[in-house]
């Protein structure tokens, strides 16, 4: 089984490609990998304990997970939410809004934020 860090590592591999081959399509892929790495990391973290998405819920599972986290007032969780929301916003843009240009520094920024969340803000816990 792969881990969220494997997904983040794939993003880094793409990010480290020579600039001339780091096409906009790849930059969009990088942002998507960063988001899913961060999302799965948080999903398996202790902070997600007690969270369960019901199929009948009136919202998508990603949004309902974020809403669950927002019940917390722990500073590190708040930081994690802000990072995840940033990544989610650009993941949606990267996947759906093809007319809005994704520049190179944005892909780099997304990787740094995902890495920060996973290694510094909320490192993996025993249940991860």
């Amino acid at each position, binding site marked *: 089984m792969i881990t969220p860090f494997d997904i983040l590592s794939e993003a880094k591999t793409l990010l480290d490609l020579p600039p001339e081959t780091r096409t906009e399509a790849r930059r969009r892929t990088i942002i998507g990998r960063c988001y899913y790495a961060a999302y799965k990391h948080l999903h398996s973290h202790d902070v997600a304990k007690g969270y369960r998405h019901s199929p009948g819920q009136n919202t998508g599972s990603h949004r309902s997970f974020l809403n669950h986290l927002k019940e917390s007032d722990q500073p590190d969780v708040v930081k994690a939410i802000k990072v995840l929301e940033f990544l989610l916003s650009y993941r949606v843009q990267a996947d759906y809004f093809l007319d809005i240009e994704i520049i190179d*520094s944005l892909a780099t920024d997304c990787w740094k*934020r995902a890495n920060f969340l996973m290694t510094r803000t909320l490192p993996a816990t025993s249940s991860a």
Partner: protein
Amino acid sequence: MSAIAQPQSETNDLFNSIFHENAESLRLLYDGPRLKQYEWRLRILRKKQPNDVGVLVSLAAVLIMQGERDQAMPLLDAAWSLRSSATRPDYTALANVYIIVGNLDRARQLGQELIERFNIIDNSFTLRTLAALCFVVGDIPSLKKLSPLIAAINEFNAAEVYLSAINAYGLAPHIAEHQRLIHSAIQPAPCWYDLELYIDPEDGEWTICVKYAVRCDWEKAMNLEFKGTEVLMDYYKAQGIKPGPAAMFYNYMMVTIPPEESGRLES
């Protein structure tokens, strides 16, 4: 077509390029040479049309984009004092630049004056911009005034979407203070802002996202996001309101403009 650009036509071209075409992708912010060229052209136009609010606000905007806020403020003050001659686009642009520099009182007043002065607004771009402006300054009465104006022309009713989001969290009595606190916490970093309102393609829910462009490294930008949220959480705790959902009822974020890409050193 004349080989020499007419001042008004050039002003309009620059205004549109600064406030419309580049708004979404924030592309202009990354293009130091083009910003410098716009600044130079606008300085020439200002000599020809010293009382043109469009020129003043455009020049102020490109200076702020380049991190030259001190130079921009007198231009904004001049545009403010000349606003009786401003067009609708000038008004909305001036209000938006005041939001960037954190003067929400002036931005709010401009929005209110715009609604009063141009009683019938039938331009969809102006209506959307105005609705966004009222949301960002937390002006519920103006959103309520705008909503029927928008409904009357059968246009997408952004004012209603903002009002619904605010009401869903019970934040109507707090939204003005909420927005003021964010802007106080992040000043003087922003050099641009953009409000996005869209339906999430995956879950069909409205998403409100306010992006502030800042010229600093990603870690400083993240700290500004955290700082704003912490301030809000403290505020809601003091009000006896569950802090997390209220403080983060919409998404605001800092988009980093790396100094090396703008051709300017980080201040």
